[in-house]
């Protein structure tokens, strides 16, 4: 459904509002669903995503928590085990490190370790990414890092449609799903079908067709990647742009189908280069498309430094359209 084109009534909205609508719908339609996290209620969410929901659904279902990441994430796991459908919001991925033990050793592990008995139908939402001069401790892009862990699914909406539609599907999943919202996308505006609803969370999608090379990205780097594709088109280089959407599992088929046609690929990932999601994608392409490749694969990632505050340094540390264009030119050669 993410690529539907049938004409339909549309509304003007933003990524933030689309997320809020998704949460509101979930709270309305299933009384097992509740939203829990720091300042999701009275404050309205640190990025105003849940603004107004406390007033609409009350403090039981839009539940403010103390600063106790490990406890409230683990509480979400326990509540899910007991039949609820919690949406746990961790303000940002930076603070999720304090809850990582609960995510890896419980959420991701309980079902398998219990021989299939203990299901954890939990959704954990968090903001991720850099680009707003928040400095080293507030600029991590660790969604690709989380994608290393078996037992969880990891998704990253990059469009209004996905912001509106991924949460519902994640909540319907019987297992834990981590949903990463890039901070730079909240204000992204656009039109959305009025009847926009759940979308699949396992397929990658081609956002732009092209024959010369494949640009693979996701989440907050999609706008930059599409901008680069535009620039390349002006030079006569037709880049195909793949939006991964799901970081775990990865949709190998969509990736390899495109690369087998273009024979060239550049992966764009805001994570630090070494051991990033981009590494895994390069590895899979090499394993699966070795004989289809016409040139070395490339990646455009964040510099391997804690992200600095100063704008010029932060810009230099993050993937930028120019760097994507340059890498694309190299592989097309």
């Amino acid at each position: 459904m993410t690529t539907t084109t049938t004409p339909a009534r549309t509304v003007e909205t933003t990524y933030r509002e689309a997320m809020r609508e998704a949460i509101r719908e979930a709270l309305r339609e299933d009384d097992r669903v509740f939203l829990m996290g720091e300042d999701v209620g009275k404050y309205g969410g640190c990025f105003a995503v849940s603004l107004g929901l406390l007033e609409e659904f009350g403090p039981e279902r839009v539940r403010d928590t103390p600063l106790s990441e490990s406890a409230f994430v683990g509480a979400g796991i326990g509540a899910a085990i007991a039949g609820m459908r919690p949406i746990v919001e961790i303000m940002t991925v930076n603070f999720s490190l304090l809850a990582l033990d609960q995510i890896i050793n419980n959420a991701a592990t309980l079902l398998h370790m219990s021989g299939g008995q203990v299901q954890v139908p939990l959704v954990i939402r968090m903001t991720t990414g850099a680009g707003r001069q928040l400095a080293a401790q507030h600029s991590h892009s660790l969604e690709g890092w989380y994608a290393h862990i078996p037992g969880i699914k990891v998704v990253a909406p990059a469009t209004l449609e996905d912001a509106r539609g991924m949460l519902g599907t994640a909540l319907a999943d019987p297992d834990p799903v981590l949903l990463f919202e890039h901070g730079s996308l909240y204000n992204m505006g656009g039109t959305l079908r009025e009847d926009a609803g759940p979308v699949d969370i396992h397929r990658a999608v081609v956002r732009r067709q092209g024959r010369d090379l494949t640009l693979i990205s996701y989440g907050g780097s999609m706008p930059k990647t599409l901008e680069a594709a535009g620039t390349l088109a002006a030079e006569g280089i037709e880049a195909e742009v793949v939006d991964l959407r799901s970081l775990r599992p990865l949709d190998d088929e969509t990736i390899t189908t495109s690369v087998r046609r273009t024979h060239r690929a550049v992966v764009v990932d805001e994570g630090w280069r070494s051991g990033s999601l981009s590494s895994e994608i390069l590895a899979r392409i090499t394993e699966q498309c070795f004989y289809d490749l016409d040139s070395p694969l490339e990646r455009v990632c964040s510099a391997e430094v804690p992200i600095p505050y100063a704008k010029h340094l932060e810009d230099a540390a993050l993937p930028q359209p120019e760097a994507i264009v340059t890498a694309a030119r190299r592989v097309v050669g």
Partner: protein
Amino acid sequence: MSGPQAVAATPTRGPMTHRGELLRGMTAIRLFEERCVELYSAGLIRGFLHVAIGEEAVAVGVMQALTEEDAVVSTYREHGHALARGLPMDVVMAEMYGKVTGCSRGRGGSMHLFDVSRRFYGGNAIVGGGLPLAIGLGLADKMRGRTAVTACFFGDGAFAEGEFHECVNLAALWQLPVLFACENNLYAMGTAIARAQAETDLALRAASYGIASWAVDGMDAVAVETSARHAVDRIRNGGGPCFLELRTYRFRAHSMYDPDRYRDKAEIARWRERDPIDLLVRQMTEDGEVTSDDVDAINAELNTEIDKAVAAAEAAPLEPVADLARFVHSEPEGVGR
């Protein structure tokens, strides 16, 4: 599975007094774990093995206060909790053997016994790792208007973890139906409590969160049951969480790997004089409630049950290797729950 069932998996021979049930329950755990130690030495049980020999009164006493609707979250030292909660010996033993007939299909082993049908949410091998789960179980029960209570077992060592602080505060703040059952056996592996806790009066520390909190002699099954019932009633009636410090002692080393260099033999001997099983037998004998014949009969019957469980485990099949990746994610039809 209230009353008898909660004490032991098999029907008992003839009517038994309640203290008799407690005795039987503790003996079942003792004999089961002593057998596990033998089987471990024989290489038939592997991995880590933590027995609670000496701490049986805690498991059996606390479990008396719980009903079927209640939930239990445990640690890696949980054979006793599992058996007292009513898990049959054979599925537990099969789990120790890593067989598909085990309560976790052999995937969990000694540290990860699960039985969702009994709301036994498992052995957790991360110290303190079960506390947030218990908070969540209690939160769900409260939000759904259920009267269930969640009992969370953890040790004196777990008390030092940040998660403990976060969870007690959350439970107290939200008035969750959670029983914090702290098994204070005075050691966290080789670390005596005084070398880990600035304030060693754990019940006092817990009370500072504004919750009902007290300590009880963890070697006296009757006293533990009384305290646990008091706490669980209070919680069930909306009194908010309670903290129970169960003062106990493990007679054996931390795990089968542990040479136990850090404890004074005399200290261990002193505590062995307070063996919870001997203690109860003495009390019951004085009151003419049990004879040495009864005790022998109980032991014999339980040993037979253990023999059966071992034989069944030996004979049981292994999970096919082809199923390794099952349950990383739920299967379409949905499993368990």
